């Protein structure tokens, strides 16, 4: 071994780094509100365990803790908002697995939403995001086309959500489910709940959109068919009281005339349903009621792995979102079942796209099975 005596490596001499903050740092009007929450995070790294992005990419900057640290760096001005930092802040599916596993339940997705809002304010805008939001502004839905809701003049307002609005045949069937369990649906000329504005960081535009959304609602209480819309509305419109369709079905299904389906499937818990709304038993109870046996995935309930489709990831980095879905789908295939059922239309879309390529497993919405059982 050769020995040199460079000054910096003398154990008695240390070059201690200094905190470097830029005077002209990015304006962090939204992140400021999260400073205490970022200090609550003890950086224990427990959030690595289930983070789907970390599992795919493997650098600490990809895990939830790493992203919280990036947000802190933007807040303090120690980090400049480069394209790389922006990409990392947007590479999150908002699955909330991190919050669920966190000792202190630190809301990292909410912190990232604030970071995104500050980045947007600073001019870091993805063209794909802008195009999506413009579609909503122009047509009221994420598809940017005229969609006609299957109007029903009943008593209980039903919010379909963009994805079911576009899948009109499915929407008709799901409305039939409600009718068969004694509900008279009132379908109205709805617009998007505004979730994309929120998760992609367009807070100012969200406020304006929310006003429009509220104007279309026939009342504060309604049933919502989409998992993500329900979760977003509960979080972002505290004055509204939506019920998720699955709650209503579970209450009323025991009194309905149900045909047992005699199927064996696996069930993928959507993040916004299990972790967001806390509904883990409800879908399983319903599947049991209609004679469907559930073979559980290795991670399920509140610890279920994400499909990769949330948080705008399908728009920001589709390849990554699909890799996450592929991993999840492979777990289902290994169970030896023919069908994976889920509830969130985005999970259905992302997992379904991968399933179609492999032809090894079918992906269906749980509501399809309920409809079949009530036929």
């Amino acid at each position: 071994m050769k020995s040199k005596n460079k000054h910096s490596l003398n154990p008695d001499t240390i070059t201690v780094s200094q905190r470097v903050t830029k005077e002209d740092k990015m304006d962090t009007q939204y992140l400021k509100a999260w400073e205490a929450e970022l200090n609550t995070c003890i950086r224990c790294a427990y959030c690595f365990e289930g983070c789907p992005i970390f599992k795919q990419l493997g650098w600490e900057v990809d895990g939830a803790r790493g992203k919280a640290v990036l947000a802190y760096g933007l807040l303090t001005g120690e980090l400049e908002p480069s394209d790389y930092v922006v990409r990392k802040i947007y590479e999150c599916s908002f699955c909330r697995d991190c919050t669920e596993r966190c000792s202190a339940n630190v809301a990292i997705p909410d912190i990232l939403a604030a970071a995104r809002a500050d980045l947007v304010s600073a001019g870091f805008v993805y063209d794909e995001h802008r195009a999506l939001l413009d579609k909503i502004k122009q047509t009221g839905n994420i598809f940017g086309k005229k969609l006609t809701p299957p109007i029903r003049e009943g008593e209980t307002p039903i919010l379909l959500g963009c994805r079911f609005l576009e899948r009109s045949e499915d929407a008709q069937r799901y409305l039939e489910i409600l009718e068969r369990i004694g509900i008279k649906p009132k379908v109205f000329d709805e617009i998007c709940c505004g979730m994309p504005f929120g998760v992609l960081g367009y807070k100012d535009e969200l406020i304006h959109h929310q006003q429009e959304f509220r104007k279309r609602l026939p009342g504060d209480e309604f049933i919502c068919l989409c998992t993500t819309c329900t979760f977003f509305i509960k979080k972002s419109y505290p004055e509204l009281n939506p019920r998720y369709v699955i709650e209503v079905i579970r209450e009323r299904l025991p009194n309905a005339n149900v045909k047992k389906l005699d199927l064996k499937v696996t069930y993928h818990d959507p993040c916004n349903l299990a972790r967001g709304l806390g509904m883990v038993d409800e879908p399983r109870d319903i599947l049991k009621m209609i004679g469907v046996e559930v073979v559980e995935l290795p991670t399920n309930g509140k610890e279920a792995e994400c499909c990769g489709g949330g948080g705008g990831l399908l728009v920001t980095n589709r390849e990554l979102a699909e890799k996450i879905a592929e991993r999840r789908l492979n777990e289902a295939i290994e169970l030896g079942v023919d069908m994976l059922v889920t509830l969130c239309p985005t999970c259905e879309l992302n997992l379904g796209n991968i399933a179609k390529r492999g032809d090894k497993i079918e992906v269906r919405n749980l509501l399809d099975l309920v409809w079949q059982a009530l036929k």
Partner: protein
Amino acid sequence: MGKNVDIKLLESIVGKENVSNHPAIRYVYGSDASVHQSMPDVVVQPRTIEQVQEIMRYANAELIPVIPRGAGSGMSGHTVPIDGGIILDMKRMNRILEIRPEDMYCRVEPGVVDDDLNRALKPYGMFYPPSPASSRIATIGGEIANNASGIRSVKYGATRDYVLGMKLVLANGELVNLGATTRVEAAGYQIHRLIVGSEGTLGVIVEATMKFIPLPKLRCLGMATFDKIEYAGDAIADIITSGAEPSMLELMDHIAIKAVNTTLNIGLPDVEAIVLFEADGKVKEAVDYEMQTMKSICEKHHGEVKAMSYDAQERTRIYAGRKKLFAALSRYKEGLACTALADDMAVPYSKMAECAKKIHEVAEKYGVIMTAYGHCGSGVMHTKILMDPTKKEQWEAAKHAVEEIYDYVHSVGGITSGEHGIAISKAPSWKKARKDLLPVMRAIKRALDPNNILNPHKLMDAPEDWLTATPLRYWVKA
């Protein structure tokens, strides 16, 4: 900082995709679960032993610090590159190489996560017991480097008790095989035991041979409440000296209880102290005997046993307060951060209650909030300092509180760290208490790492003041 690291060379060793000196990556890898922050010059993710050797040869020739890093969950600044250099992120070397149930050992790469190893051992009816609270993400390499342990260390010991051998890359890139695969070895220096707890200062662990043991078939957990913490302390000391064999023996003080009750609303009894006691084993009669012994001792010391159960769900309920304590502390009061300083001292059993009282006294004196809880069965007292991390005066107060608590701990024959290691935060107090040991440790360090490139400025070489050793990772306002 600002080392002239040859990125192209590192890329040629591990591949371009496994090297990054991007400011954002350096910033993220500049902190861990401690209060410290200092950026590395580059982060490298090696996949093979040969790659680690090549990196070390290069770093040793160029005098560039190298800091091996597992999950980065250390609470004392173990992986914070105080003087810059190369972070070796070992998480990609995460293969379980061999499980030999017939010989009761396994060989693993350093990046294997503790829980993953236990999942792999479970089908054989075996387990690897040291599991710290962070076992879900903690890597075996990190656990060895820190001699990690957890709630069941009272019965099963710490990581050191399970390391049979290892492959170590020295500072100059040489690879050495240490230890054995047998349970006993009497052949010269037990160097592998020296590496356990060396905090990355003596070599890079690139493979470990770990022993494992059969899983217990039964577990029973009880909860006893005490009106005075002295009674709880006496009961703990008595349980240990009685010869009872708890598999867990935990203490929670009234601040811990209040934190759980006010933030989580799970209705723990409003008393001065709670003791959780657990026994495990193969035969119910034997477990019953242990539980009854501990119950009687608690009652002898004015404790009231509120619950005792074998049922897994009930055990989860009984343990919920302790399990969620950390969460409760983090949410104790808006604006306060839960900092790991003076957080894992160990004291003699007879001083457990007195230590808890001293912690409360010091906290009050310096205007911070401190709780006392921990794995008292193994003598470990945990505490966290809850403070406003944005205020400079709070840090000064914390510094004095830490100093005073450690002076007390050492005066009663206790030690600085039972579980979390020394690194930066605890070095000043530890060095003060172990002056006699420092020259020996420095001599060992110089022998194995003459150029001082492996995790420099930690342990015996750490700065005298943890508060100024690195910038704090919190944004302290003027």
